[in-house]
């Protein structure tokens, strides 16, 4: 009799522990599978070059998209070599000095999608370095020049350049130039090609990129539950699950203290009302962001594919709010959607307060035969009215020359990528030119036709 009672009570207890809000028993919970695989990508691998430009010292430049990451890896190794030295001082230099250093001598400059604190970048390259790098310098472009072989040049998004002088010279430029492969193409400043603007634009282009079919990561039936379990952890049992008339699912903890939204279009969002109160650094917040995203859907190679940091911003003085944006990659090229990168995470005071995620599953496959793309010059020229109207917020048509000069001046960079065109249950990845404006808006244009595909803030 006692045995029967014990068995009965055990059964009740097991049902209480394993019963799911959807009804039914979660046997997977018996073997400890809660949330997705929490394997995190390395910070070093997330920071990839948008493109790199080499100068031969005679006014000629070539440009590489660095899809295999060789130039970026070499640049980080060179910076690590500088940081191993015992002396550094920095000074601001003028735009003219910087341009002369880049054009009058062999040089290499690497441009990044996201503007990062240079001190954080140095800490990622060389965690053991004893050198103290200023916290107030932001890096959008990292440059090396034989005009100053003992220096690196750090340029922010506004075009202000700091020269960091180390104790000993290195053969950085020669080593970096050797990393430029056959995919390098001639490039010129926009003012030389178009008569206006500063962006370094490729002269022409050839590509074998083709369209790729993709499905929503949330199409996996366990995705939502795993994400909820991963986020709410032990409190999952106290989470309310609600489904609206459209099929969108909301997991709510408390009275809206923490909410997880699973949308029918494949998007996932999280919000928390309580902010953290810790004084954290870039690396800590990045780890926090990645760790959170890993339990909210996974970030492993087979779950997410490649990824790269394509956007970053920070605010606040003592308690920092940092927003990290990550894009998936296909063949080394970033993938963007109509809402921008696939993953956006906000960390305040060391805690995640917001997350927006719209990942895709796809197989990049092999490239097609090379064919001519539309030239960057004509991407800007043919779409100047579109760019003008979006950035100006104006519905009235500007004069052609006015719109063109504005669009050329506002162009910060033009790189190859993919645009995820939404389809039922997924998307089609369309090869595109990604035009980033100085105000941060990204425009997407078909790589071969030059027609607009969309834009995102």
């Amino acid at each position: 009799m006692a045995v029967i009672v014990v068995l009965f009570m055990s059964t009740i207890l097991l049902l209480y522990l394993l019963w799911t809000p959807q009804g039914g028993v979660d046997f997977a919970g018996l073997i400890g599978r809660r949330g997705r695989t929490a394997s995190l990508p390395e910070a070093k691998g997330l920071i990839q070059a948008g493109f790199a430009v080499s100068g031969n010292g005679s006014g000629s430049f070539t440009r590489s998209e660095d899809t295999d990451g060789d130039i970026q890896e070499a640049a980080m190794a060179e910076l690590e070599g500088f940081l191993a030295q015992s002396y550094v001082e920095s000074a601001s230099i003028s735009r003219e000095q910087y341009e002369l250093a880049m054009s009058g001598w062999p040089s290499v400059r690497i441009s990044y999608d996201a503007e990062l604190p240079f001190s954080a970048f140095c800490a990622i390259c060389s965690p053991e370095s004893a050198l103290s790098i200023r916290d107030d310098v932001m890096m959008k472009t990292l440059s090396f020049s034989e005009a100053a072989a003992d220096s690196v040049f750090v340029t922010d998004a506004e075009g202000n350049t700091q020269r960091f002088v180390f104790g000993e010279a290195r053969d950085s430029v020669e080593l970096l130039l050797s990393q430029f492969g056959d995919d390098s193409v001639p490039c010129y400043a926009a003012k030389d090609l178009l008569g206006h603007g500063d962006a370094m634009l490729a002269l022409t282009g050839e590509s074998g990129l083709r369209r790729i079919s993709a499905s929503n990561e949330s199409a996996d039936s366990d995705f939502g539950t795993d994400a909820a379990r991963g986020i709410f952890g032990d409190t999952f049992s106290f989470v309310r699950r609600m489904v609206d008339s459209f099929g969108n699912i909301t997991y709510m903890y408390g009275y809206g203290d923490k909410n997880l939204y699973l949308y029918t279009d494949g998007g996932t969002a999280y919000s928390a009302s309580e902010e953290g109160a810790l004084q954290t650094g870039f690396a800590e917040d990045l780890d926090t962001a990645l760790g959170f995203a890993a339990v909210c859907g996974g970030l492993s190679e087979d779950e997410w594919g490649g990824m790269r940091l394509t956007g970053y911003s920070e605010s606040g003085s003592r308690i920092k709010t940092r927003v990290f944006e990550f894009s998936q990659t296909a063949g080394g090229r970033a993938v963007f959607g109509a809402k921008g990168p696939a993953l956006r995470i906000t960390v305040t005071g060391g805690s995640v307060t917001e997350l927006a995620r719209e990942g895709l599953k796809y197989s990049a496959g092999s490239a097609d035969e090379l064919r001519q793309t539309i030239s960057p010059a004509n991407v800007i020229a043919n779409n100047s009215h579109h760019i003008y109207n979006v950035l100006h917020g104006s519905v009235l048509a500007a004069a052609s020359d006015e719109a063109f000069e504005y669009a050329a001046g506002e162009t910060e960079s033009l790189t190859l990528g993919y645009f995820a065109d939404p389809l039922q249950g997924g998307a089609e990845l369309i090869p595109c030119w990604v035009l980033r404006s100085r105000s941060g808006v990204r425009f997407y244009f078909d790589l071969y036709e030059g027609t607009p595909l969309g834009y995102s803030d």
Partner: protein
Amino acid sequence: MSRFMRVAAALIIALSLCISPVFAAADIVSPVAGSVVESDSLLVSVKVTGAEKVDITVYRVYYESSPAVYETTVAAIGPSEGDLDISSGGALEVSGAAISTEPALEENAPAGGSPSQSSSGGNAEGEAQSETITILVKEAEYSPVDAEDLTAEDLEKIAAGNSLDEDGMPVTLSDGSVMPKYSDRVYASTVRYTNESEIGFYTKQLSSVKPGLYKVTVKSSSGTTSCYAAVKEKQAEPEKSNIFTTQKSGALQFLRNVLRSLFR
């Protein structure tokens, strides 16, 4: 004409005047007119406004290093002087291809256009005399323009194409020499670019370009546009130390180094 026809004609004319015609145009963005480029490559960028087909040609400019030579030899036989051999010659400038380079030779004249003598007809008294005129033309020689000493002002003068200035004096270049005659020879064959949008660009990089003077010509429905650019060898690099000025005073830098060495 009936009143209705007059009104209709007036309306058609007014409508035609109201419709603004779309003027297509082509501008050369690069090279900038009169620019001096220190590089081994030349960027050609042409902006085309409106639906238009344009022809783009790049020429290398040559100067007349040796003028043409024009010699005439006249042989005539007079009635009282027997056989006469009159040769006359002089160097006359010729221009263009107006002058045939083939000398007028008689049947018994030696080949090669060398001055020849011949006679024809009889030399008996009273008979009409004939003349044989031999023309020898040595073509002008042209050499590539050496752009080493050309300045932007020189390029302006070359582009203007005037051999005499306002005072009627020969135009001189910045090195004091008289502006020679120039001749264009095709360097990059004509390319036709078709623009189908409001604004389009033709862009091309010419690589391994030798130092010299080049001319880019664009022909469109609205006319022909040209510009000259001088390509030079890259000059010696400026002193590296001149690029970056010292930011801090010597005393302050010394103090920083001392402090740094103490806490190293």
